[in-house]
């Protein structure tokens, strides 16, 4: 195979994406493409710049199974036929005068919420966003309380250990008192 043939062959493969065996990598789902179309707005003018379009494509997942967003996939995996097709849909919707939110909604309506690279901040999805911080805050509060208890315990023991023997009683009594103040056997961690 010479250069021209190879160029032709590789380009063909890029367009056709023939089914190939894969190892360790999730197989590409060729049939996942669904057209996303909306009627163009009257007197439509594009609402998004190219940078805004690329940013929007970073928020939409390529459905070929690569786990990448549309922009990254179409500029990285040049054998993927889906991300260019999805990109064309994005461009079509932008040309139709639709805003970023409208385009996200249109893709969600066709593919479901899994087309979004991050879940929408609504309903149960809030749990996804908030839970790590709630867990951390709860942990921090719990740890602070625990540390305060430990410091109080240390202070009490220190106070007992500095009492003069004559004022406190016998060594045996003091040892019992120290153990009681230390709360030996209680929860410690």
């Amino acid at each position, binding site marked *: 195979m010479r250069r021209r043939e190879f160029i032709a062959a590789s380009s063909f493969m890029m367009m056709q994406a023939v089914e190939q065996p894969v190892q360790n990598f999730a197989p590409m789902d060729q049939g996942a493409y669904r057209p996303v179309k909306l009627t163009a707005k009257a007197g439509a003018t594009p609402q998004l710049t190219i940078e805004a379009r690329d940013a929007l494509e970073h928020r939409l997942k390529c459905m070929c199974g690569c786990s990448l967003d549309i922009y990254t996939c179409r500029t990285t995996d040049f054998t993927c036929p889906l991300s260019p097709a999805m990109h064309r849909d994005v461009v079509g919707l932008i040309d139709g005068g639709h805003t970023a939110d409208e385009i996200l909604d249109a893709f969600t309506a066709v593919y479901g919420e899994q087309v979004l690279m991050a879940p929408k901040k609504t309903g149960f999805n809030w749990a996804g*966003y908030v839970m790590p911080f709630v867990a951390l805050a709860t942990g921090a509060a719990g740890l602070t309380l625990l540390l305060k208890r430990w410091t109080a315990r240390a202070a009490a023991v220190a106070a007992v250990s500095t009492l003069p023997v004559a004022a406190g009683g016998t060594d045996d009594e003091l040892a019992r008192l120290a153990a009681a103040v230390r709360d*030996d056997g209680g929860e410690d961690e």
Partner: protein
Amino acid sequence: MILLGELSLWVALLMATWSGLVSFAGGALRRPDLVASGERATYAAFGFVVLSSLGLWTALLQSDFSLSYVAQYTSLNLPTVYKFSAFWGGQAGSMLFWCLILSMYGAIAVFANRSQHRVLMPWVTGTMATTLVFFLVTTAIASNPFERLPFPPPDGRGLNPQLQIPAMAIHPPNLYLGYVATTVPFAFAIAALITRRLDAEWLGAVRKWALVSWFFLTIGIVLGMWWAYVELGWGGVWMWDPVENASLLPWLTGTAFLHSIMIQEKRGMLRKWNVTLVVSTFLLAILGTFITRSGVIQSVHSFAQSGVGNWFLVALVIAFVVSAVLVSTRLKDLETPAQLESMLSREAAFLYNNLVLIGIAFSVLWGTLFPILSEWVRGEKITVGAPFFNAVNIPLALLLMALTGVGPLIAWRRASPKNLQRQFTMPLFGGLATGAVLLALGMRDVYALVCYTIGGFVITTISQEFVKGLGARRTIHGESWPVAALRLIGRNRRRYGGYIVHFGVVVMFAALAGAAFKKEFDVQLKAGESFTATDPWGDEWKFTSQGVSYFEALNRKVLAVALRPEKNGVVQPLIRSEKRQHVDAFDRNTFEPSTEVGILETAGQDVYMVFAGAPPGSDDPVAEIRVTFNPLMVWVWWGGIIMALGGLIVMWPQADRITRESGYAAEMKPQAVGAAS
């Protein structure tokens, strides 16, 4: 040799089973003869797994396509080094590789403790052997690399092109060495729980193993980042894929353990917490393997879906239940009279550091599993990708980095206000000055600004610690700077090795923050055509296409394009990116075309070039090219190297080794065991 390898797999299984049974029996019945037999069986199991591995390697190197695994992952024209690394390139081979490392660690652990920790060792050996039995059974039954084909093909399919890169030859072994090393601390924890010897003894035995695990996981993760960067072509190092997350989880909990162990060593506190961390690290390693191999979560590089995932799920549940039962029945033994002199102490700082590490581990796990949870609750599939993880984890990572600088500044037990003022003045000044300078220079990205400010704080902290230590040595011993530096680190390896690790973390974080300033350009160029671009540093670049070339290499056909860059008018080395079509020995295409990126690496940034392709129909094709300026990228790798170096210093054996005890028989006397229990 291949048949011997196949048979050895089964004999190894027998040996491991025997080792587990007699070790547990020896520990329970206090029979040194059974314990010794179990330990010998551990060595034997290792020997047979080595034989089995040699069998598979022989088949791979000889291209014996009668084995399904060899036909699936190699081809006649595959370079020898990749035939060798194909051992861990697929599901079945990597399972055997796991067995190889696990049996090796088991043998090392038994040998290293042949005359110490004798009460613990039967249970350690038994737990290691039981784990090995699980992996050997899974390998032999569910994923056997010696499975034969009825009709051997004339050539194999070959190794995925994206795995034909030196980094991929060493990235999986490092990850496996890290993952599997979590088994030894886990085995010691189980042994300590069973025998109720939960003082610092078992911790001393596992600290080095925890460091080994951390060291290899660090190298493995950084190599994985490098592989993603140079091979996948999307220009980043971390995409929060479930498999990447799976490697991060045990690293995070392992790091937390390496900090909290110091508190138990110094103060005798945190027994429950340390046991929990050790067990969690092991369980997370298994969970990660389950995620990777089950296909339960969509991932870009999951192993093909197979029944192996179910085996790991069962193992995970069993290990969790056993650990939970043991911990819950030993709560009283795990209790210690915890006291803390002050909230302003290094102990408290370490605990908050632990909290943040675990918080990040939780958020990564939560994000990884949230799609499953969402589907259960709402019946709606969702994607949790990089935007989610970045939103949640970047603030936590910055908080962690700040604590990295705070910990060393606070004294153990209690820090006085005067002490704090003295310690914090310079680092705070260093951090704020860094932030102010960057702000004045026009940096406006909030996260990057915060990252560099905290980075300045931490680096000043570390510098201050080194300067103080060096100054003290020079004053007391009159040493030169280099000698003082070598002795300072050599005689306080844990402390200063730890600082070096922290320095590496800052370097890596600072480099990753550079991604905020990356710039991308998509262009189409014919031979001789140019385009100009301004990089994030404000320098002017001109790239001139040298045209598209075609050639054939060992196992591939290559279409390449080269760019001649000029920076501010000064010619730079050529950058070349390739599009490759891999073929087998019969010139048949084996995989989809792959892309090799071109990188011009400098200290300030990488110029990262990807050749998208060239539409057909002309002898002078137009090359579609993406050029990206990735600021500070080289420092990601240097950060990783520094971290690994620091880890190596920390785990390097000290001269004052612990005197070995007098032999297991003496310690295994009934009265000794009785006293222990």
